[in-house]
């Protein structure tokens, strides 16, 4: 039997075909991953049941899923702004950590003896989130400045700055900000500074609402505003954009600030909503997975939000599965990666169809 690809006369562009192919990719990815259960003499069916049940069908688990999805979403929204403006930014990990650091800095100032020790907790938290977002924005803005002013390579610069941020946080928690004890981490912030939990019986914190609000804001900017139009034009074709009177360099710098600001805010939220202290390994790839969720969401705000929740769910479910059944959660990571690859592969099916020995199939 011969299998070949044949070009479609008209590419599939409808929303339903996208949904159908995405579901197909997820299913194939799970089937492929299912094979990995077999050496443990475990049933893939039960494994997935435990995974999905924990992630989406228990209140506590779903709360965790949304908590995990929160920074992913915000990084994803930042990706939409930067990438659609033609600024291929990969420095979200760094921005997130710098934002977390900035947020912690303000929080530590509110401890006894600090300059903010007499301020109201709400004011401290607000300041912390703003300061985190500002530092994140400046961190990314530096990359934008180097790219647009001097023609620097934004991919390389951002990746290097990620390392800078990772080791800066490591240095702080191991040295100047270290609390007495075994762990390299700062002192825990007092409870009145924590973001409030918004769903009883879960760990879902108010930061999730901030993420949703930022999604709405980004959607308005990109889909409805003049700034967004000019950013998208700059990303699609800088020559046309300049011809249309758009200041491409300025739009890209603005995009860098917005993207970095969102990641920085996500970092500060993670501190005030989840860890309540700065610690090493706090981001652990969130700044990269967030980019993936934006790609999976096809650079749209709702798509990115959904992809973030699914991705967050897989991680949470995978951990729960490991705890309950002893199966390694690396299976889930493999499934996640396979799904991403398969989703990208389905792009081909939009423009081509598979032909099996003369008989036509999708």
């Amino acid at each position, binding site marked *: 039997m011969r299998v070949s690809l044949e070009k479609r006369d008209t590419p599939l562009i409808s929303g339903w075909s996208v949904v159908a192919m995405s579901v197909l990719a997820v299913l194939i990815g799970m089937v492929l991953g299912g094979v990995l259960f077999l050496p443990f003499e475990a049933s893939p069916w039960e494994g997935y049941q435990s995974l999905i049940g924990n992630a989406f069908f228990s209140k506590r688990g779903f709360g965790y899923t949304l908590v995990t999805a929160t920074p992913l979403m915000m990084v994803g929204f930042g990706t939409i702004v930067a990438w659609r403006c033609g600024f291929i930014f990969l420095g979200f990990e760094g921005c997130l950590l710098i934002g977390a650091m900035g947020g912690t800095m303000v929080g530590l100032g509110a401890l006894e003896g600090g300059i903010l020790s007499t301020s109201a907790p709400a004011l401290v938290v607000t300041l912390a989130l703003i300061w985190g977002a500002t530092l994140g924005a400046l961190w990314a803005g530096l990359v934008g400045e180097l790219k647009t002013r001097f023609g620097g390579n934004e991919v390389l610069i951002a990746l290097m700055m990620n390392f800078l941020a990772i080791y800066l946080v490591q240095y702080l928690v191991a040295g100047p900000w270290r609390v007495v004890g075994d762990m390299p981490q700062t002192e825990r912030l007092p409870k009145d500074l924590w973001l409030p939990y918004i769903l009883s019986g879960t760990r879902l914190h108010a930061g999730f609402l901030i993420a949703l609000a930022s999604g709405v804001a980004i959607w308005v900017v990109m889909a409805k505003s003049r700034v967004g139009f000019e950013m998208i034009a700059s990303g699609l*074709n800088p020559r046309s954009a300049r011809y249309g009177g758009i200041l491409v360099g300025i739009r890209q710098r603005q995009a860098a600030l917005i993207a970095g600001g969102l990641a920085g805010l996500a970092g500060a939220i993670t501190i005030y909503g989840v860890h309540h202290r700065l610690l090493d390994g706090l981001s652990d790839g969130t700044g990269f997975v967030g980019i993936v969720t934006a790609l999976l969401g096809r650079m749209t705000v709702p798509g990115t939000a959904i992809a973030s929740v699914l991705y967050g769910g897989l991680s949470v479910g995978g951990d729960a599965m490991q705890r309950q059944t002893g199966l390694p959660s690396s299976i889930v990571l493999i499934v996640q990666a396979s799904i991403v690859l398969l989703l990208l592969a389905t792009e081909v099916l939009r423009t081509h169809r598979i032909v099996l020995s003369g008989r036509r199939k999708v």
Partner: protein
Amino acid sequence: MTDIAPLLRMQKITKRFGASVLANDCIDFDLHAGEVVALLGENGAGKSTLMNILYGLYEPTEGTIEFDGIETTFRDPAQAIEHGIGMIHQEFMLVEPFTVAENLLMGTTTLPEGAGNLNAARRLIREISADYGLQVDPDARIEDLAVGQRQRVEILKLLFRHAKLLILDEPTAVLTPQETDALFEVLNRLRSNGHAIVIVTHKMHEVMAISDRVAVMRSGQMVATVKTSESTEAELVRLMVGRDLDMSVDRTEPKQRKRALELVQVQVEAREGAKATPPATLTLRHGEVLGIAGVDGNGQTELIETIFGLKDAVSGSITLEGRDITALSTAERRAAGIGYVPPDRRGVGALVTLSIEDNVILGASKDFTQFGLLNRSLARVAADDVISRFGVKTPDADFASGNLSGGNLQKLVLGREVSRDPKVLLIEQPTRGLDVGAIELVWGEIIEQRNQGAAVLMASTELEEILALSDRIAVMFEGEIMGVIPRDKATTALLGAMMAGRRLEEVAL
């Protein structure tokens, strides 16, 4: 000639794309050895589709192809070449750092006899080259060759592979008049040596000059096949377009003749590595078309981009109605009343992945903005206005602009710029690649703008266009303005001499 069986017989060829597009509708096409047939038609008439079917790039939906008496369909171009059918595209497929001989040997699986090594190939190339008057040196590097010579290398490549049938797609689009004459000489030799040639074109005078027969296509159908000697240009145009064309230009006395744009000693930013050109001084008045003639790449684009603010002026001043605009950005110059239709419609003039509506916003996004948000209903009205006023053929304003044909895209770009009532309209290569119907419309609009009092600066490499539309003509050579003359004093010979680098003072005396 008709008594002998034809070399090629395409019968009842039909090609559909999807359900709605019928690119070729039951087409018959014959070709004999030793004749040149011109395949004539407007853009989108189905010429390219038909030739791509012959060349194995497309599979016909229906119909048969008989070549050399045998029924065939080619799976891909490699197979077509093997059978002796070769095609030369508008963009040449040559590796620039390689020599002619290396280019010819490359990718050849079935080498002609005695061409197994480079030395033998060289000898063979010299032989073929001499036989057909191609004058190609097998050891020359492609990057050192002029466009006309590269085209001859492409022809040589086909002859080297024993092509009996040669298809040339718009072969003269990139050639100077002299190079075109040389090409026609080569084609004549090929014809007398028994090759069959198809030239795909929409240039009427070339059809008359070189072809034996003309096959005319319109909207996917073959409307007529006539002997060139028994036809006239006017009749062919009528067959091609389906109606009589009115290319006459209606000039009225413009409403005002005040100075619109003044360039004083403007030094254009030199390209990297290029030497600086002398500064330009030029005055453009309301109600006139100032044509800039010149061979492509002689600084026309750089000068116009400097006026539009896409490039900085190194020194000198640009004034618009007395106001110094030298320091303004492109957006500010647009707002001040300058419009620009660039030569590269797809790469610069439009955002091809976005809708027509979005493209109407481009360049004036501020005008469609309220409280920071785009007013889409306002934009829709403006887009619909451009579509209806300029007859852009599209289902609606949501249609992706990149899917418009070249003519319709140009109507969109020109329409957008004109709909903002510019004081100064800059326009480059207004009709490059357009068919006659679209040319008629674009010319009409340029003159309409002039009559309404706009100042039009138009750069074109087509002398015919310059002479038809301009009130005054400037000639550029190597970045320098050779002189400005009124149209009624301009002759082709005079302009030609200036285009070759002689100053008006030298020529006119």
